[in-house]
């Protein structure tokens, strides 16, 4: 009896693994496919389509910044810098790890930081922001699946967040304000700002409860 139960369990577990592998297949949205194409064949046509879609969004992202030292004229510079990086780095893009949108966002964020630091610092900056970024190199099927699910969930749920949570996330990500700056601007205690961000992230299923963390790591 014990043996049968163990065998069934083992079978179930491997079935679950197969299911996970299947669902972590690469991203199949239009932009991720185009980005893979740019990386594989240096297709100018695919790049032009990516440009047409992302350049206006990147410009909007750049203009939203309210960081000290940032000014609107930098917006087109940022678009240019990001799109050139997209072209140069496309062959390193892995559609299993992230969607094209997430991948391009991280490039835009890093460029924004580096442009700001170059503008504000007379001192020599040794590290480019990319240096801080750690590729999640040893990802398991479970963490890949989770990343993909998060992207899908965020896509659907971000617009449904209570306005107070959405507003703060926009302030933090788009305007580039720290929690402390956001608390001053909204005239709210810092604790309230932090808890709104946390609540929002929980609703988006980005924060993992500690008890699940071990499970994910041990997989």
């Amino acid at each position: 009896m014990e043996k049968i139960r163990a065998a069934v369990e083992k079978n179930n577990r491997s079935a679950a693994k197969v299911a996970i592998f299947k669902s972590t297949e690469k991203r199949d949205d239009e932009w991720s496919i185009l980005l893979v194409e740019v990386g594989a064949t240096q297709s100018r046509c695919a790049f032009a389509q990516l440009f047409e879609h992302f350049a206006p969004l990147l410009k909007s992202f750049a203009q939203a910044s309210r960081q000290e030292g940032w000014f609107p004229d930098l917006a087109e510079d940022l678009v240019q810098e990001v799109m050139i990086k997209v072209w140069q780095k496309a062959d390193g893009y892995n559609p299993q790890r992230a969607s094209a949108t997430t991948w391009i966002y991280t490039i835009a964020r890093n460029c924004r930081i580096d442009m700001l630091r170059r503008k504000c610092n007379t001192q020599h900056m040794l590290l480019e922001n990319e240096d801080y970024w750690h590729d999640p190199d040893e990802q398991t099927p479970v963490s890949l699946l989770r990343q993909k699910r998060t992207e899908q969930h965020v896509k659907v749920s971000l617009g449904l967040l209570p306005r107070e949570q959405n507003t703060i996330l926009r302030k933090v990500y788009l305007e580039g304000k720290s929690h402390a700056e956001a608390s001053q601007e909204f005239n709210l205690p810092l604790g309230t700002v932090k808890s709104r961000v946390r609540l929002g992230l929980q609703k988006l299923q980005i924060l993992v409860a500690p008890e699940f963390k071990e499970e994910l790591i041990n997989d």
Partner: protein
Amino acid sequence: MTKILNHHPKIEMLVELSAGTLDAATAICVSSHLHFCKSCRNEAARLDSVGAQLMYDAIPETIDDSLFDEIMSRIDQPQSVNEPVPEKPGINGFPAHVNKLIHEAKRTPIWERLSKSMEIAKLFTGQSKFEVALHRIGAGGVAPRHDHRGLEYTVVLKGSFSDEKSIYTEGDFIIREPGDVHQPMGAKNGECICLSAQEAPIKLTSFLGFFLNPWLRVNPM
């Protein structure tokens, strides 16, 4: 590097790292923790999808047609072929960006003696909010008891140490707030190296410390 760590940065630090608003010194420390902590690394990757979606949902701005041509002409320019830079051997197991700070600084970090069992090597980071440094505690060494006048972040890069509250091992991220008093002790079985970012001078609370204080000035570089 898949062990489970007990001491992590606060979630708001990961959010600010993902949003790109964390100051450089804190980002160096948080990224060092990510090097060791898979769970925070995955959390940071998931957080990026929030920024990505906000960008995706933005109202598109008009782009001048000339911008595409300009980009294509820049792409077509013959690339200056970058000689592959021979990778300098870093300290094994250290995060790449910390090794970069150690090896590529204009001034090579120098270990200075802080007390009988503790040494410090200041790192050049090009920012002035925090002093970023490596601390080394010899095996079984006891650091002077001190309190903190400002924030301090510490990440264990090698070995382990303990204080009155806990034991800290490789990758652990420790936050000390003003007023925290502690006395770190190195593990008996080997030296411990930590990366730290310190906002304001620490103040030694022991009698001996009274004489040492003037040498513990914080010098962000």
